[in-house]
């Protein structure tokens, strides 16, 4: 029987939750890297035992961790090319922590400033890695979305990182930080077209490359940000919280924007609203069912200042029509006195049948449903605030 492995990043360490394919009984391992902010952990689709993790701290900066045995052991993979991977004493070297913006004249037009909260220009400053996206086919290739927003790639298993600087050439001077910082938080690889990648940034919008990351353009037509931008349908500047796709339909994209749930049927060329009957269209995560490309999940949050669920009720909303018609999923979730948030990377779906859905809260709960959202159980209740949840199905 398949096994299921959840990778949960929290404000104070990482946790690995494992179960068999019934997804009824879970073992909790952790904390790993206790005390550090674990923004994101993700496994390689090409090698499920290859895991990457972003370990970060306001004090001590950015650390990249890697596991080659499914999370049993971890190490920092970095070392300069051609050099031994360890010091003479056997210690791993540390270049994997180095994220330096490309300022070379040969790689496009690296910019030196972006827009600050008050509209003035501000220099790019690396802060942390928000999201790690391993290649669909090569365990040693992995992308990193960082704050201040940029995209980095490693092709040597995380040992060294190089910026895909053409992205910042896509009107980077107009990008601005959202409340959580100016983060590149979503990286989606097109399984049918290896040249195509989508990324999303708060607050800049969605960008697409069709040449494997060399050149990029904004794909935000149809987004409206009436209360966030002076020009509500500007080409860039929108606070996109998360985007999602089904791998079998890579031209169909779903978006949870700051306000509004949106859909594109043409790979981002145009977007239209599908918020429909949601109680509020503010929120962070959005995901697509593993086997039903028109089944979409969101978790509405009351507002952009009240970052908790409406009416004290934790409700996942599911649309089986690709949007507009939404049903509340509440069975097993708290329906009174609940005031948690669910962050943008804290939701995941597994590939089993029935499809499993998981999400983590700022209150430290990780909930799971083994039947596509009809019934929920708390897998663990009292972790630190959950920043991210990913899931792997292990054959």
């Amino acid at each position, binding site marked *: 029987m398949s096994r299921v492995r959840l990778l949960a990043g929290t404000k104070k360490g990482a946790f690995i939750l494992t179960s068999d394919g019934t997804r009824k009984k879970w073992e909790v391992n952790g904390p790993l890297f206790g005390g550090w902010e674990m923004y994101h952990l993700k496994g390689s689709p090409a090698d499920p035992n290859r895991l990457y993790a972003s370990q970060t701290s306001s*004090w001590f900066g950015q650390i990249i961790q890697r596991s080659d045995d499914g999370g049993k052991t971890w190490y920092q993979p*970095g070392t300069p090319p051609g050099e031994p991977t360890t010091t003479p004493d056997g210690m*791993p070297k*540390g270049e994997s*922590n180095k994220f330096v913006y490309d300022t070379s004249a040969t790689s496009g037009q690296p910019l030196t400033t972006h827009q600050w909260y008050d509209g003035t220009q501000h220099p790019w400053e690396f802060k942390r890695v928000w999201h790690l996206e391993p290649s669909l086919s090569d365990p040693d290739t992995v992308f990193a979305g960082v704050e201040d927003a940029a995209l980095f790639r490693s092709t040597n298993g995380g040992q060294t990182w190089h910026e895909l600087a053409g992205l910042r050439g896509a009107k980077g001077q107009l990008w601005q930080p959202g409340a959580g910082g100016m983060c590149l938080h979503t990286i989606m690889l097109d399984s049918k077209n290896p040249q195509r990648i989508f990324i999303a940034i708060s607050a800049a919008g969605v960008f697409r490359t069709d040449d494997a990351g060399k050149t990029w353009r904004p794909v935000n037509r149809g987004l409206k940000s009436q209360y966030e931008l002076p020009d509500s349908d500007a080409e860039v500047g929108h606070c996109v919280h998360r985007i999602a796709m089904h791998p079998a339909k890579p031209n169909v994209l779903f978006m949870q924007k700051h306000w509004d749930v949106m859909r594109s049927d043409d790979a981002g060329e145009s977007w239209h609203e599908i918020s429909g009957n949601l109680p509020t269209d503010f929120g962070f995560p959005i995901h697509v069912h593993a086997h039903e490309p028109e089944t979409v999940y969101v978790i509405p949050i009351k507002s952009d200042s009240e970052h908790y669920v409406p009416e004290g009720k934790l409700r996942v909303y599911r649309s089986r029509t690709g949007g507009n018609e939404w049903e509340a999923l509440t069975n097993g979730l708290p329906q009174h006195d609940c005031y948690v948030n669910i962050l943008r990377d804290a939701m995941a779906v597994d590939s089993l049948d029935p499809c499993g859905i998981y999400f983590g809260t700022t209150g430290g709960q990780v909930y799971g449903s083994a039947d596509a959202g009809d019934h929920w159980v708390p897998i663990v209740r009292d972790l630190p605030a959950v920043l991210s949840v990913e899931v792997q199905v292990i054959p």
Partner: protein
Amino acid sequence: MIRVVLPAHLKTLARVNGEVILEIEGPVTQRTILDALEERYPMLRGTVRDHVTLKRRAFVRFFACEQDLSHESSDTLVPESVASGAEPFLIIGAMAGG
């Protein structure tokens, strides 16, 4: 012999217990101490000072001999008692609500 005390998180990263002992030839300054520390424990590169600018990270401070040396020039000689190994050089995570 230079004695360096790391904050708990960096001890974990470097996989050390207790003080770190470094041998430095020539002038003992913050720069030569950190150079030797990163040479010995490369996984600490970027955690105490920036990879490129080599500036101290904002929430890291350097104490020794009951003094705050954080704002000293990185090329200023450290106190003789640190250079002789009588006193440790302390790398501290700043008190910042953590």
